[in-house]
């Protein structure tokens, strides 16, 4: 019994409660739900906004491939992955992963795995708009994200 993940790429903000509700609504076999929200930081007050570029089509396809790996590996009962693109202000969500399972271990591990792999495989790129000084720097990929993905 394999589930179909709910994968979305959107400019609209993300409604965590509505997403978790949708995933669990009417079900009584789910015992644990892990929701990860990735949020835009202001980098010590220097950042005005992030601009997220993505590769339409491939972004959804790659998110789906990573989701399918998680579904094959953990007994998930529900999985939602939403990634935003466009301009995102500090304090706003960039990404949401919600993983539901009968037991907490699978939900924790799947959400953790998904974030590591979305970071390193989903075609999104962040550009920084700064409040002062030169804007337009592209965020550099971090070696620690590759290391995190290599744990799995």
């Amino acid at each position, binding site marked *: 019994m394999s589930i179909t993940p709910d994968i979305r790429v959107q400019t609209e903000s993300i409604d965590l409660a509505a997403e978790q509700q949708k995933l669990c609504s009417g079900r009584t076999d789910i015992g644990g739900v892990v929701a990860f929200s990735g949020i835009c930081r202001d980098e010590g007050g220097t950042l005005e906004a992030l601009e997220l570029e993505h590769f339409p089509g491939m972004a959804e396809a*790659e998110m789906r491939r990573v989701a399918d790996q998680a579904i094959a590996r953990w007994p998930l009962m529900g999985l939602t992955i939403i990634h935003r693109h466009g301009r995102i202000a500090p304090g706003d969500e960039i990404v949401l992963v919600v993983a539901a399972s009968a037991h907490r271990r699978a939900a924790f591990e799947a959400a953790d795995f998904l974030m590591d792999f979305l*970071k390193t495989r*989903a075609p999104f*790129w962040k550009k920084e708009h700064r409040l002062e000084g030169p804007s337009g720097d592209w965020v550099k990929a971090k070696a620690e994200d590759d290391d995190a993905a290599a744990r799995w």
Partner: protein
Amino acid sequence: MPTVTLRYFAWVRERVGTDSETVELPGEVSTPDALISWLKTRGDEYAHAFADDAAIRVAIDQVHAGRDQEIAGASEIAFFPPMTGG
């Protein structure tokens, strides 16, 4: 000569100066690595975009690909920096 759409993202796109173009591949270009070498000869903007060669990632028909992968039959090849989403 096979025709292929090239797509560029993030700073690769900014340096090349376009997000997409259609090119006819020379016969000897059979891998992303060879394609990068050929692109570099097409002008300063390409030389600049692909100067930090090792940083460039490739997708063939919207699937991550190795730099030495066969590109025969591809209709779209994309070049971009390491991803920074999430």
